[in-house]
């Protein structure tokens, strides 16, 4: 699992630019599933057929995209103006090293604030060391996207920190799960989705074409075990979280119970998650076509939407066991 996380968090893939991540995952799952295809939005859709002719279709979705900064303009002096892709926090971005798809690196700088002025991304720029706009535009083009350049590193005994743990940790979980999944009666469709960070866009079209009976999103969730920050009752390292509700979806109660029952069977301690914000691919799946029961299995993650998102490997192993337990029934 650790190796998978390292490999996937090292990949470049902001919303709308997920091809590199998809290529890696396709390589990892080739031969392990019955079919792999991509759709117009770039979703990678991997299907493992069930043994029962009347089996259900279960869609498991983990999003490949990460938040980023899209270049909108090059100033005369060679600095790049940007706009956010997804929920970029200014505080988490200030003076950060960033990188582009082609390897160009830069630093993201906030101009000095005038008295009374509030922080705005309009007052940020990326310095890529260019002497003027012309040179800058030979290195990076308008519409290119920068992501945090931090690399994955271990922290403590069981934990890893990296940008894009949201949601590559769940991609790693889903890859590992599909690699180990033996044939069961239901058909399992692993969807590595695109553009979740800009509004669960990829999973919307994927759910339409996959036509599942049940949808389960795999995503990270916030932790409340931090100093002066106890907004949610989720602790890192205390097991995967079964989502009861967030701002985007109310999980189907029977599905929540089924996942909790599976956790009991495989002896994994789970946390129950109620998140007063956010949303996952469950949001778009639940309203696809005629609708379906949905739930999210969450990986607790500290510092979500930063360059140092921290997950605990024990939570991830637990999540894998719970989902496999659920699928095997």
């Amino acid at each position, binding site marked *: 699992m650790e190796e998978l996380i390292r490999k996937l968090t090292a990949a470049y893939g902001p*919303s709308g630019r997920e091809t590199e991540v998809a290529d890696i995952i396709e390589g990892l799952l080739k031969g392990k599933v019955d079919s792999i295809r991509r759709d*117009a939005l770039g979703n990678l859709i991997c299907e493992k057929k069930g043994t029962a002719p009347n089996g259900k279709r279960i869609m498991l979705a983990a999003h490949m995209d990460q938040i980023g900064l899209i270049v909108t303009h090059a100033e005369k002096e060679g600095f790049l103006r940007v706009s956010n892709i997804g929920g970029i926090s200014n505080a988490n971005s200030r003076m950060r090293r960033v990188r582009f798809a082609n390897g160009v690196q830069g630093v993201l700088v906030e101009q000095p604030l005038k008295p009374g002025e509030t922080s705005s991304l309009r007052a940020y720029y990326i310095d890529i060391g260019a002497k003027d706009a012309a040179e800058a535009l030979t290195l990076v083009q308008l519409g290119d996207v920068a992501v945090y350049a931090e690399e994955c590193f271990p922290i403590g005994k069981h934990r890893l920190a990296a940008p894009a743990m949201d949601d590559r940790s769940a991609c790693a979980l889903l890859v590992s799960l599909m690699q180990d999944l033996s044939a069961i009666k239901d058909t399992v469709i692993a969807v590595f989705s695109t553009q979740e960070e800009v509004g669960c866009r990829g999973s919307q*079209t994927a759910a*339409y074409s996959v036509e599942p009976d049940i949808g389960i999103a795999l995503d990270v969730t916030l932790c409340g075990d931090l100093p002066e920050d106890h907004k949610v009752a989720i602790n890192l390292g205390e097991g995967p979280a079964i989502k009861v509700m967030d701002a985007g979806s109310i999980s189907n109660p029977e599905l929540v119970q089924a996942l909790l029952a599976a956790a009991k069977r495989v002896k994994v301690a789970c946390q129950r998650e109620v998140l007063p914000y956010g949303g996952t691919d469950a949001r778009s799946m639940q309203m696809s076509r005629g609708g379906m029961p949905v739930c999210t299995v969450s990986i607790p993650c500290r510092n979500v939407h930063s360059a140092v998102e921290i997950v605990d490997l024990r939570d991830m192993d637990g999540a894998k066991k719970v989902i496999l337990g659920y699928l095997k029934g």
Partner: protein
Amino acid sequence: MDLKTLCDMQGISGREEKVRRVVRDACVKAFGADAVALDGLGSVIATRKGSNPKKPRVMLAAHMDEVGLLIVSATEEGLLRFRAIGGVDSRVLVSKRVRVGYDTPEKPSLQGVIGAMAIHQQTAEDRKAVLPIEQLYIDIGAKDKAEAERTAPAGTLATFDTLYTPFGEGCVLAKAFDDRVGVYNLLRLLDAPYEGDLVFAFTSQEEAGCRGAVTAGYRVQPDIALILECTSANDLGETPEAQQVCQVGQGVCVSFMDNASIGNADLYRAMLAVGDQNAISHQIKQFVSGGNDAGAIQRSGAGSLTLALSVPCRNIHSPACVCSLKDIDSQEALVRAYLKSI
């Protein structure tokens, strides 16, 4: 159909019938009645069957509707209270002329003018304040509430009273360039050479939240969709270059992202290359703002590759929008050249 006629036509979101009529007639004339559908939300969808099924199914979309005003009630004095349909900045409204109601052969629309407190009565503070739409009134010269309610009952629409006017070096001003320029160019493209299926969608209710495009996208299910739009050129006064979005006169705007969609990255690069290779004047939209039908069409059904191509427009969503005729032509030329390239 000339641009003047299209812009001067009244067609607020949900009430696009005048535009729909001329668009439908033009499509029926070009492809026959069987090729032209009207959907439940009032979009016109004209399909030109291709001869080569290997070519991608391409959808070209432009919205017929414009922003405008909706009468909600009358005051005791016979003035009309109103609200906006679509994004209208109340600062552009004071003392503007409007047409209340749609013109029909039997009954012309009423002349109206939007009133507010005279400068003589304003305090220093009043002069700094922006009057919200709730404090503005349309005066139709009615003598009292009863007369106002009789001539312009609640639900009556009002459009900006501006006639299309060329001025300066190839510039034009009008209301409703957003998105009659797209409609105009879609009609010019009905004869564009392309071997695959080509579907022209004239959508409704974009200004009310891209509603027509949801159902139009569902019906068309394209592989590729190009959205012919109008976008804000913020190239006036002291605006820093990084916030100008685009500049009037510099060609059609190719957009990598707005608030409703991220343009397909391959399509975006291909479009820039087509512009370069054919020496068609184009620019990159240098700001992320707004949203258009691309968002709805991209995510309809199993999804499609989308890209918005927009004509820069100063004072967009106001009674006096300004565009350059060259930019309008470059939008049409770029789409035509792109179709040749695939």
